[in-house]
């Protein structure tokens, strides 16, 4: 006859920190891309006024909150959900799934197909958010990595891609 032992869930601090940093950078990059890229601007324009979405890892974060402010500008609103009303929440089911996504081993589309995401909100809005994430990843990542991260790598003119990339990076770093 054996005995029972209770094990409390441990922590994966390093992985959690990595995902938090990636989400922080991605959030700022979305804000930057909304000023630089016409497609991102158009996607946000079609979303309701003061629309806010939260990309997060279950069960308790990290979070990336992005939305439109009162004047319609796209803003990265940080990782603290306290007091923020969100129209859409895209929840990654666990930290390992987030790691697969943020190390670009799995694209958002593949993660969705593998049932690693939960959408709390309207599906068309979630699709728009995923398209925005894809565009931003194309700006941020070299083609060889971005091809793994997005559903279909777009055929952009070199001007749009390279000049856009410089502006997106500059605005992301400076927080503009």
């Amino acid at each position, binding site marked *: 006859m054996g005995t029972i032992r209770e094990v409390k*869930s441990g922590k994966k601090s390093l992985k959690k920190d990595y995902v938090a940093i990636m989400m922080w950078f991605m959030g700022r990059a979305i804000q930057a891309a909304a000023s630089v890229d016409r497609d991102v601007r158009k996607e946000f324009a079609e979303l309701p006024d003061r629309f806010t979405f939260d990309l997060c890892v279950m069960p308790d974060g990290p979070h990336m909150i992005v939305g439109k402010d009162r004047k319609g500008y796209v803003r990265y609103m940080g990782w603290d959900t306290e007091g923020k009303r969100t129209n859409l929440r895209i929840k990654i*089911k666990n930290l390992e799934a987030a790691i697969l996504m943020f190390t670009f081993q799995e694209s958002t589309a593949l993660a969705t197909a593998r049932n690693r995401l939960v959408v709390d909100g309207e599906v068309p809005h979630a699709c728009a958010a995923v398209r925005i994430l894809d565009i931003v990843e194309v700006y941020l990542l070299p083609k060889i990595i971005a091809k793994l991260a997005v559903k279909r790598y777009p055929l952009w003119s070199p001007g749009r891609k390279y000049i856009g990339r410089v502006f997106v990076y500059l605005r992301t770093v400076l927080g503009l």
Partner: protein
Amino acid sequence: MFSPDRYEFFCPVKTNSGSRALEHLPFELDTMNATKPFVITSQKDARRGLVDVIIDAFKDSGVTIGIFDGAPAAPGMKLIKELFTMYRDGGYDSLIAVGGGAVVDTAKILNIAVSGAPEDIERYAGSDLITKPLKPLVLVPTLSGTGYESSRYACIDTLSFSSCFLMPHLVVIDPRMIVFEDVETTAAASLVTLTHAVEVYTGPEKNPLSDSYAYAAIRFVMENLVSVIRDPRDGKGRLALVNAHNAAGCAFSNSTPGMAHRLGKAVGDACQLSWGLCMGILLPHILERQTSEDGYHIPGLLLPLAGFDVYAETPEHMKVQKAIGILYDFQRDLFEASRGAIVRSLKDAEVPEEMLRDIARKAAGRSSTGFDADVSLMVLEQAWKGK
């Protein structure tokens, strides 16, 4: 496509298979309103590090788990009562069985107790006597399982249970848990799976839904078993085999055990051999016998056994012989891949010829599907000699 006049099919099992599948466990438990699971496994699987993988999967989830890693090969009611006390005193609300065979039987029987009272267990022995859903049960299979784990069946001591409520709510098939054991265990487990799936696919209770599960199971075994025996490092093959076990278990739950299952079990019990080995030897001989009987659907079996091309190019009147021939070829391939460990006849398995009559009589006596002792003996004699 075969369409019966009437059929029933029930499968409440959700399957989550593939890379990092275990990490979904906290989420899945949450959807079942379970917050504190009780993990049951064997010492052997714990020593192989499988419990550590489970613990790792729960990191960052905030969930506390209880682990019992002492499930024996032959659990008894005394153990169930002790586990019931541990479960109740620890405030657990769900069960996770890691492994195959006895571990899962223990979890299923314990689930009857914790969903009611330990006194309930003996009352529910039999068929379809459990009338209400039990606590959430998650199965994390290893390569030693046969698919029986996903099915509606369980047994302990001399008691047998059959109820759809015994089927696990969730089966998590994660490559990290599928460690190769040995040639005999792996082959025997998959031969049980193949036998169950073939008997569902060809049997009188065949229906379109059980066909889909059985088809997947047969294809997975036919495509992967020999390659896994040849090269145990074949991770994709091992994953496919465990998927086959699971699919066959779900199909088997919707069918009455067939002649190969019953005779194979009877030979195994009488001669202390693995059931899978005996079922694998008997299966083609039994199918040969059933070709002349009403109610069996042997020609269509060629499709899952050999694939579309062979099925399409084989004339209708030759499909039965072709299918049975493929099963004999499969026996030969297994024999060669295992360097003679997986034998092809009951004689090579060292079954005494003089025991066959007694085995046939016992198996026919237990059968609810109407095969008699003479037919059983005829099949056993053929299988004893081998092809």
